[in-house]
């Protein structure tokens, strides 16, 4: 089924999803839906998280030991799985942000010529 035409947001690039998730979790522990909402909010609705790929990404990060998860009661008492950044994850976030910036400036430099 086709996506609704009114949304103009572009999908988050798969490689950058991990970075955005880490950054979101750096603020506070959050469940999956919350993470996708936050990314949309922060990006002022420019970025739309493909929600089907969010959960595999969370699993990947958890296996790397960058984030941790636990089941907790959310607002009106529903159980939700909350993810939180680990110390290792925090360190990794620094490295990832650094390499992202290098990548962006490199791409910018190329785009700036001519």
């Amino acid at each position, binding site marked *: 089924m086709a996506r609704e035409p009114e949304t103009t947001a572009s999908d988050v690039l798969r490689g950058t999803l991990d970075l955005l998730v880490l950054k979101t979790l750096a603020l506070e522990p959050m469940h*999956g*839906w919350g993470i996708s909402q936050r990314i949309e909010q922060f990006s002022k609705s420019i970025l739309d998280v493909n929600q*089907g*790929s969010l*959960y595999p990404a969370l699993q990947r990060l*958890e*296996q790397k030991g960058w984030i941790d998860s636990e089941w907790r009661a*959310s607002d009106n008492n529903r159980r939700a799985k909350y993810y939180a950044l680990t110390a290792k994850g925090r360190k990794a976030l620094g490295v990832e942000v650094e390499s992202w910036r290098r990548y962006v400036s490199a791409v910018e430099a190329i785009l700036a010529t001519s």
Partner: protein
Amino acid sequence: MRLARLRLLARAVLQPRIAERELEDEIRFHIEKQTELYVRQGHSRHEAFRRARIDFGGVESAKEEHRDGRGTRSLGDTIGDVRYALRTLWRDRGLAVAGILTLALGVGATTAVFSAVNAVMLRELPFKESARLVSVWEENPDRGWYKNVVAPANYIDWREQASGFAGMAAYTDYPTTVTLTGYGEPTLLQATNVSGNFLDVLGVRPRLGRGFEDADDFDGEQRPVMISSRLWRSILRSDPNVIGKSLALGGRKPWQVVGVLPDGFDFPLPGTDVWLPMLWGKDYRGSISFRRAHWMRVVARLKPGVDGASANATLQTVVKRLETQYPKTNTRMGAGITPLREWIVGDTRTPLLVLLTAAAVLLLIACANVGNLLLVHALSRSRDVALRFALGATRARVARQALTESLVLSGAGGLAGFGLGWLGSRALLQMQPTGMLPVSEIGIDYRVLGFAVIVTTLSGLLFGLAPTLATTRQAPAEALNAGGRTFTGSGARRWGRVLVMAEVALAVMLTIGAGLLMRSYEQLSRVPPGFDPNGVLTVAINLPGARYDTSTKIIGFYRTLIERAEALPGVERAAAARELPATQTSWSANFAVAGRPPSEQSADIIYREIIGDYHRVMRVPVVAGRTFTEADAGEGVGVALINDVLAKQYFPNEDPIGQRIAPDRVPDSTTIWRTVVGVVTSEHQASLAQPARPEVFLPMPQNFTRRMTLVVRARDGIPPTSLAAPMRATVRSLDSLLAITSIRPMTEVYRDAMSRQRFTSVLILVFALAGTALALVGVFGVLAQLVQSRRRELGIRIALGAQRSQVRMFVVRYGMRLVAVGVAAGAVISIWSTKMIATLLFGVAATDWVTYVAVALTIGTTGVLAAVVPAWRASSANPAQTLQAE
């Protein structure tokens, strides 16, 4: 691997359902939250939920990706494979059961028999450097002696003069018992007499105390005794201070425990509990009987650096010297050595090797059968496999599936085989004729178990996997179009036919072997034993020398016992003899006739003391003269009975009655002459397979012995076993301290004489039946497969008007061809293979054509039976249905 990942992996593996449920919960939560958001934005609940689902994308694909991420994919596949294998095997239950039974039979039989062979023939003897131990024996061609018992004086001379040996010890291996009193009921213990250096030569250290010393060979003030760990633990309750204690074992002097032997030490015979010293008199060495009576076994240790041949050469030098030194006793008296292990295995070797071969052949049949079954299975699934390829499965994936299936099968079969092997090795030990397997326990040989499982698994893989892979070479579309009608597996099917023919051939070979053994057993049981074992009870007694120290007491005891036995209701007549016929042990001596020159050669005549009318009790007919009477009881003129073999040999043209005979080759002034008063027909003394030997009977009152066996004939219609209790009571009323050696009906003694032949032939027969059953299952499998694959063709034939009987004949003929080729091949192999059992046969040739024809006909006919069901199935196919099913 990182800890976190490990933890997640562990959870995913151990609790796959929990991981799955958590994922579902998480996704549901997400969708609910998104739905709420849309509701707040003003959508209807239904619309909101729809949008939320669309946003999320494919839930299932997200789940699948998540599952991949868990890293348990291959494990999950394996579990899936196993489940799938179990499912296919369950769907094909008949085949699975046949396969597992086949494996269990093959693996179980091989494991049990090889474990027994290992325990008897291959195990390390529990002695120091046991490879350097040899058994030393005597031989005498004149008397037909080979590997015979040794005279003590000869043993002492060898020991002192043969330089190739580091030590030479003597022991007795004929049944000896002592009665232990003072510990509850009188207990009969199995005993052996051994020389002082016995343990030193074997290189065995007692667990407690000491072994005998050379001084113990001669009777002294103290009589030392060594006991088994078994006796020490049971009756002596593991007494740590047992060394130095006195044991009441009979005898004038006390017995003192000097040593307890290590656990499991049971040389020379399993079950030995007491080792006694020789107790020779100081003056024995010079007496002629010390060199004339042969009764000891000798074990020797080769000197370091000396091989068997050189040691034997030093022995031969001594033997020659003794021959010239003592012509009266040692003329033509030779000696030889045999490695101890070979000696212990003895004549069990051939039957065990035959059993082992039979088990190996059964394993081969099992391998072929498993291969064949899996082949049939694989062929019937080729369409299924093609479909899986079409759906994108890789070759490796399909191969893995087939592999899993055959591994599941061999796992189950191997387990069942282990159980069968365990039971089998115990059953072998339990049911073996006494003394056939000279070990007290048989451990499962895990190497053989492993070997058998691996061999059957490999053959299963080879024959089951190969055709599966063969089908993969075909384009899936082609296989699917073929609709299971034709296979590229025609090569594999040819393999299947070869396997079945090989199975039949091997089964024929086994069955011919079993048939020959059964026929020779039958021949053996037809041999007239020379006596009537029915209705006779035997009571073996060995009077202790301490309390029965004079001939008057001994003869008095047996006389009274026979009188009282005859007074019992139900007893027709009783008598006693030193030994029963058809048992292994016998005592023999030389022979001379008064008025004839001494014979050039030694003779080997059996002498047996009897009391009462033994021949009448055993229903041995008297040919001439009379049997012994009360008048013969006195010390007056010596009398004797002879059997007809002796009469024919020594008095072919004379009347033996009235002849005077003596047990010496060259009679002298000390010779005791006896007059022959009667001739009786012959009994088979040692075994039924050997002809009756010349024998002399002496009235016991003229030549007494403490060890006698009563034979009690029951009145007509009274079972002899019902006399056992009154006989026990009668013995007790005469001497309450006397332990009876054994009470058995004579029929049992007689049956035991054939027990080895029966044991071997029944076991081989069981293997042969199992092998034949497997081969028939194979024939059935191939035919069922044939019918299955040609259903369409058969349906068309019937539709075109073929008679159903023609269709049936087509299948049966196909089966008959397989069986016929197998039977012919098996018969040809048997001409060669039965040479192995030639020495076990009695009264039947290894190429006995009756057996060959009977086996060929039997297996041929049963082969037809295996074809019946597939043939019927083929002919009952409804053509319309068969053709529609495509």
